[in-house]
């Protein structure tokens, strides 16, 4: 079969594009696994929040977060909050400032200590 250089190049291009995209998506899985096991902060006994703080956080969560993130935090309109691989400071900042057009800010509703309770509760979602 006498294929023109353009056709052979097209076949190679298709193969390269498929392999690149497939490779990236396949690489995502081990990265995800490694991130959740290595990079996600694990609470130690020294930093374990008190039951009162968690109960307060759960109450605030039910009041302000469950509508979008689901009662169990598995996500609804908003994203799943289980196993968040971001820092407490970043979670707190997200709650406090929100994201324009996506998530309201709760900086006026909750003061820093209450946001810390929310963060502590969100951290228990595993």
């Amino acid at each position, binding site marked *: 079969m006498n294929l*023109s*250089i*353009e056709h*052979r*190049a*097209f076949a*190679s*291009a*298709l193969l*390269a*594009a*498929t392999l*690149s*995209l497939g490779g*990236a*998506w396949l*690489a*995502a*899985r*081990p*990265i*995800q*696994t*490694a*991130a*959740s096991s290595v*990079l996600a902060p694990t609470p130690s006994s020294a930093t374990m929040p008190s039951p009162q703080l968690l109960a307060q956080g759960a109450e605030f969560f039910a009041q302000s977060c469950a509508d979008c993130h689901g009662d169990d935090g598995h996500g609804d309109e*908003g*994203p799943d909050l289980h196993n968040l*691989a971001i*820092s407490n400071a970043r979670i707190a900042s*997200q709650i406090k400032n929100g*994201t*324009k*057009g*996506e998530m309201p800010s709760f900086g006026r509703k909750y003061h820093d200590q209450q946001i810390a309770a929310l963060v502590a509760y969100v951290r228990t979602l595993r």
Partner: protein
Amino acid sequence: MSIDPTLWPKLHGASTHFPVALAMAAALFEGLGALWPKSSPRKAQLHAAGYFTIILGALGTFPAVLSGLFMTKGRVLGHDAELFHHLFVWPAFALLVGLGVWRALVGEKASPRGFSIYLTVLLITAGLMAGAGYWGGELILNS
């Protein structure tokens, strides 16, 4: 040994602008080269510029995509602005790699019809890259 959590966002920010800019530059050079009069030596120069920018752009997608995957902890879609960013990124990535490979292999031997198809797909890819860049910027500015 712990990895600086800001490493991947920094690397993604540093690497991601190259393929975006190079894809757009390739579309510009190849487009202008197609429009330029045949008699002018500038035509070949523009196509040569387009040839190298598309290949470098295609190569540049790999560090950008890898650092992005590490930054998002392997999330390939996400939600909201990140989802929009990824809906542009993935087709643009595949198309840019494909275009780079096609252009590298065909070189100067492209037929007018083959080159027209290449140029059309390149313009679409440049648009997708622009969309990916826009939603990437939205992610940074609104988070």
